């Protein structure tokens, strides 16, 4: 059985295509095929295969919080890739991230910090065949090239009572992790048509992913030549004029053209858009003519116009009248400004709102504790009636309440039943 791999040699989806599967999506799919959690697979299996202590990465929801590993994170993407390739014997795993592009471009800040999906793609790819394209993890991409609609945030839209306990959650593509709804049906965001600029970005980023996943490699020198050529084309022989057109500083452009530092993906795309160049040919060092776009680079998301004082006062009054007692941060967020800015302007109102929010939260905690106490009392009574030991395990099986160390249930359990069988 020499050729038997530790993990199934599952084929990554859509290799060589724009919708190529991301590395973390493949990992999640593999864990699902083995019927184990992603953490167990990584900490107990991959760690043994590769000899790297993945436990120091902590929980999956922690190390995957910014979805940057699928794009590229130094020290993590390559480790995960090599461990997966070793355990599955599938060498194509190496092409599931943009790791190979890291030698040509600066990939920092390229990933989207918000998990997003295409509402139509997730409906067309039902579980368990569903996978998550790498394209959705790229920050500047906001549209689906297949359906021409905008990507929507995958944040769960179900009410808290429908949220699953941590034990019951599944980290699988195409499913809301928080409530388990298939195809993110809990996300109540309407479908919006993507603009021409968004489609241009999505298609070109998809072309880059397709090329990387097909095994093509790019060099930093070729990319530099491409940048010079495109800057010259935009400035009509005066390359530094391209900085103003594209939206970045001349100093940065100088660095990129002189090879002082590699260019990032977003400004590179802005150069391609402004010069009307094909992205792939530009990465290869010889930009060829293609469709132009209005996409321009901006280093930060622009804040909306600062709201007038009357509007600010109106929002604060509305917050006082709101029976749900919103937090002060949420009021500031609704105005599109930072909470410290608002607090500085309305210190007394801010203090009152914060106090009100804290009181409400305390009351909610007390209510939850009381509800949990009733549920645990009931479960203990059932266990004692059936003659079963009152252990955490039996309590979980009976009531679904997972009494972990330090949780709000632990104190209640200790009060009700001392000592607790720990098995």
């Amino acid at each position, binding site marked *: 059985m020499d050729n038997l791999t530790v993990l199934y040699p599952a084929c990554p989806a859509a290799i060589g295509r724009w919708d190529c599967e991301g590395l973390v999506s493949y990992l999640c799919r593999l864990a699902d095929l083995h*019927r184990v959690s992603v953490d167990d697979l990584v900490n107990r299996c991959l760690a043994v295969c590769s000899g790297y202590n993945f436990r120091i990465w902590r929980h999956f929801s922690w190390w995957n919080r910014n979805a940057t590993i699928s794009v590229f994170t130094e020290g993590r993407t390559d480790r995960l890739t090599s461990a997966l390739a070793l355990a599955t014997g599938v060498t194509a795993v190496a092409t599931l991230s943009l790791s190979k592009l890291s030698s040509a471009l600066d990939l920092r800040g390229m990933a989207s910090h918000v998990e997003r999906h295409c509402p139509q793609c997730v409906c067309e790819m039902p579980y368990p065949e569903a996978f998550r394209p790498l394209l959705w993890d790229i920050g500047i991409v906001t549209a689906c090239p297949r359906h021409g609609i905008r990507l929507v945030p995958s944040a769960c839209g179900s009410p808290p009572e429908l949220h699953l306990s941590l034990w*019951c959650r599944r980290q699988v593509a195409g499913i809301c992790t928080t409530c388990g709804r298939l195809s993110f049906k809990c996300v109540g965001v309407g479908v919006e048509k993507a603009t021409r600029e968004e489609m241009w970005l999505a298609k070109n980023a998809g072309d880059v992913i397709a090329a990387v996943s097909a095994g093509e490699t790019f060099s930093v020198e070729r990319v530099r030549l491409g940048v010079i050529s495109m800057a010259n084309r935009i400035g009509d022989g005066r390359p530094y004029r391209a900085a103003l057109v594209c939206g970045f500083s001349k100093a940065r452009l100088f660095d990129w053209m002189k090879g002082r530092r590699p260019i990032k993906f977003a400004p590179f795309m802005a150069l391609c858009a402004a010069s009307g160049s094909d992205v792939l040919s530009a990465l290869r060092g010889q930009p060829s003519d293609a469709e132009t776009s209005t996409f321009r680079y901006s280093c930060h998301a622009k804040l909306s116009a600062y709201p007038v004082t009357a509007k600010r006062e109106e929002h604060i009054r509305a917050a006082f009248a709101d029976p749900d007692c919103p937090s002060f941060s949420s009021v500031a967020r609704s105005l599109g400004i930072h909470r410290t800015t608002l607090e500085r302007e309305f210190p007394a109102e801010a203090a009152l709102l914060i106090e009100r929010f804290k009181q409400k939260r305390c009351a909610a905690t007390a209510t939850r504790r009381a509800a949990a106490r009733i549920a645990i009392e009931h479960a203990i009574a059932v266990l004692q009636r059936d003659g079963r030991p009152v252990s955490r395990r039996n309590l979980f099986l009976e009531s679904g309440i997972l009494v972990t160390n330090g949780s709000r249930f632990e104190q209640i359990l200790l009060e009700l039943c001392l000592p607790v069988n720990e098995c």
Partner: protein
Amino acid sequence: MKKLLLSEHSRKISIEERINFAKLTRDQACLLPADQKLRYFFSLQVSHLKLDRVEANINQHLGPYSDARILTLIGPPGAGKTSFAENAIANRMRSSERGQQPFLFVAAPAHGSVQIPWSAVYRKILESGQEPLIDHKRATVIEGDRVVTRGPRVSLDSLRSAVESMLRHRGTRLLALDEVLHLLRFNNTEAVMDTLKSLADATDSQLLLIGSYELFGLVTTYAQVGRRSEILYLDRYRRYIRDDEGMQVENQADLNEFASVISRLQKRWPLEWIPDFSEVCADLLDATLGIVGLLKDFLMQCLVLQIENGGKWKSAFVRKALKPASVLSGIRREIESGEEILTKAGYAQFSFDNEVLERIESASAHAM
């Protein structure tokens, strides 16, 4: 000399080792150390007529175009069913593709419990497939439009689901379950057969159930499986048969084949001094009930005794190596009652007699 322990050597020979042993000449085998000599002789597999017939039958029913989902291999104890599945079929179905395991062999466990030990069976299947993290399997359930993990780790559902996934993703085409009677003796045959059938259906693999004669009755009474199952019988050699007139006559074909098996095993004898059993083939057939597995056991015992005696052969070893009459009569009773079951059930009897076949042939000839 240190006493040789035969049990330590049995069933611990990998396919690669078996192939290496098969390549050795007798002279090379004679140079092996004592324990390796035993392993060498134990690893030898002699093909014979009855086994070839079963192999041809199995080959016919294996593969994606076969409708038979459940194959049942029955035969007398010691006939070599397990060894045939473990080695011949495993060797035939080996895959060079990385991560694939087209054949899995599992011995159904007996735990002495009052319930069918399904979790132990699933665990055994997972262990046989070298599945990682068996103690961390979790069941995923689709409840309406939600996908959730339910129940504790290593629940029956999670193990079953893991087995299905493993068989599917390891490309397992044949799952052999030995000692199936351990599962079927709970007087709940239908439930067991239903479970096995659904496992075969869900994974698109074929099941090979291995057991003794009792398995025949249990499998044939289950109609759901009967339609899509095949029963393969590994018969023994017989010294006497009845002719057309019902007279008992010597079965020369079986005697010759049995003699040939003995001769081939003698030719691989890993010691200088080879005992000659050619003159007593018919008696050996009687003493081993015509079962090649029992013959091999007898020869192995002879080899152990000869090695312990410094390589010198004594005819007194035969008496020690043969099974006692009481044991043999027990096995004989079991075999005869099993053969009676087969005869009563009409095994290998077909609805169409020769006359019907002749009519089909003549009609086909006219059509040409």
